[in-house]
Each structure stands twice: as structure tokens, then as C-alpha cells.
């Protein structure tokens, strides 16, 4: 129980600080810590494969893509700090989030989830997982492969931009 509380506290604190900071790079680096905390939760819960997938995909790949996006979309060397937005917007967001949090906490606490099945820790080896993925879930695996290919090709096409666009913007001068 203590590890869960530690992991939860660390993850929530880093996520909250990351979304409140002004410096985008600091936000991205703190979110890496938050994602690593989520991977630690998966390890604690016994889902080792998901934990390693989380480390590979989020801590390794998505964080790098986010950092690249931050660095590619800044106008000058010190344009990585974003001003805090209007206080009204922040207060409205806090009120909405607090209301959702209250509803969710109330629903979770008041629901009888039953006693935990003591000792009934489900175990799943990587071999079993692979057999499941290639057996009953083979169609879903193929569709996810196609989805990833199409999405990454689409991302390249969207981000690359066309040459005429760049040529016609050149006279404006590169800020």
C-alpha cells in the first residue's frame, strides 16, 4: 500500500507542476517523470510488459516528439516560456476540474467494489501475452499496425509542408 501512495503522490505532483509551469521545456521534462511514475505503477500492479511499453512509448518516444515540437515552434532563442493566461480562464478551468474531481471521487468512494481478492494476483507471462495477441486478437493487431502506418505517414505529410508555401513566405524574412 505504501508504494502505491508514494507512486501516486510523485506522479500527481509532477503532473500538476508540469502543467502549471511557464517554461515549456521544464514542463516536458517533468512530464517524463510523471510518465515514469505511471510505468512504476504498472510494475507495482504486476503488468510488466505494459510498464516497459509505457517506458518505450512515453518516456522514450512521445517525450522526444514533444521536445522537438517545442523547439521547432519557438520564434527566438528564449521564446520557450509562455505567459500565464487570463485568470478568469484559469479559475473556470479549476472550477470545472474540481467539479469533475468531486463527482469522480464521490462515485468511487461510494461504490461497493468488493473486497480485494487476496493473493489472487493475475499473472501473465510475455509468452502467454504473445499467444493471445497473435491468436484471438490477431485482427486487432493488424488493424493497429495499419493505423500506426497511416498515422505516421499522415504526420509526415502534415508536418512537411509544401515547397510553394515555403517559397512564397521567404520574402517576408525569417523571424
Amino acid at each position, binding site marked *: 500500500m505504501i508504494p*502505491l501512495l508514494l507512486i*501516486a503522490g510523485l506522479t*500527481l505532483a509532477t*503532473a*500538476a507542476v508540469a*502543467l502549471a509551469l511557464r517554461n*515549456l521545456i521544464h*514542463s*516536458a521534462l517533468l*512530464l517524463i517523470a510523471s*510518465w515514469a511514475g*505511471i510505468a512504476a*505503477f*504498472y510494475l507495482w*500492479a*504486476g*503488468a510488466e*510488459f*505494459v510498464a516497459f*511499453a509505457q517506458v518505450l*512509448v512515453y518516456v522514450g*518516444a*512521445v517525450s522526444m*516528439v*514533444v521536445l*522537438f*515540437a517545442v523547439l*521547432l515552434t519557438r520564434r527566438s532563442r528564449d521564446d520557450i516560456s*509562455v505567459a500565464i*493566461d487570463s485568470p478568469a*480562464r*484559469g479559475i473556470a*478551468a*479549476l472550477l*470545472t*476540474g*474540481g467539479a*469533475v*474531481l468531486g463527482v469522480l471521487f464521490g462515485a468511487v*468512494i461510494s461504490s461497493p*467494489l*468488493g473486497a*480485494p*481478492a487476496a493473493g489472487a494476483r*493475475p499473472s*501473465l507471462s510475455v509468452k*502467454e*501475452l504473445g499467444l*493471445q*495477441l497473435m491468436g484471438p486478437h490477431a485482427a486487432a493487431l493488424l488493424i*493497429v499496425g495499419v*493505423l500506426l502506418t497511416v*498515422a*505516421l505517414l499522415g*504526420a*509526415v505529410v*502534415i*508536418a512537411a509542408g509544401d515547397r510553394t*508555401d515555403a517559397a512564397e513566405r521567404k520574402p517576408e524574412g525569417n*523571424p
Partner: protein
Amino acid sequence: MTYSPLHLCLLFSSALFCIGLIGALARSNTILVLLGVELMLNAANLNFIAFWRYGPPTAPGTGVIFVIFAIAVAAAEAAVGLALVIAVYRHHRSIRLQDANQLKG
């Protein structure tokens, strides 16, 4: 009153979801909004694992396989989202959400 581990896991994931929601609503920087959405997706994955671990027994590996597919889709979403951020930046020279207010580039 003591809570079962499942309760604690669900409270953890609801808190993470709400942090992501507040971040996505309060900030006007597109990258931070996208990161808030990613946090909400992660909170949903936490729920899958929590119910797989502590919920009533089901077919082995149901929750784990669901989370693996969710992570794959989330990776695709992050790649396309950040490509869109770069495309918007190229048109508007800004990634504030309020500045991207026209459909024609």
C-alpha cells in the same frame, strides 16, 4: 475508514484525469493542451490495469491487451497532434489556440 487498493487506484487515476483536464482547459498553448489530453489517456489506462489486477477474474490478459492497444493509438495521436501543431505554427507563426481561429490557412 480504510479503502481497498482498488479504491486507491481509482482515486489515483481520477486525480490524474482531473489534472489533465484542468491543464487542457486552463492553458492556451497547444502543446500543453495536447499533454493534458495525453495525461487523461494515461489515467484511463491506469483504470484498465487496476481492474485487471483487483477486479473480478476475467479471461487472462484482457486488461493488459486493452492497454497495449490504447498505448499504440495514443502514440499515433501524439504524432499526428504534434505534426498539426507544427503545421499551425507554420501558417500562423504562433501556437496559441486563440490565434488559430480560421479554417483557411
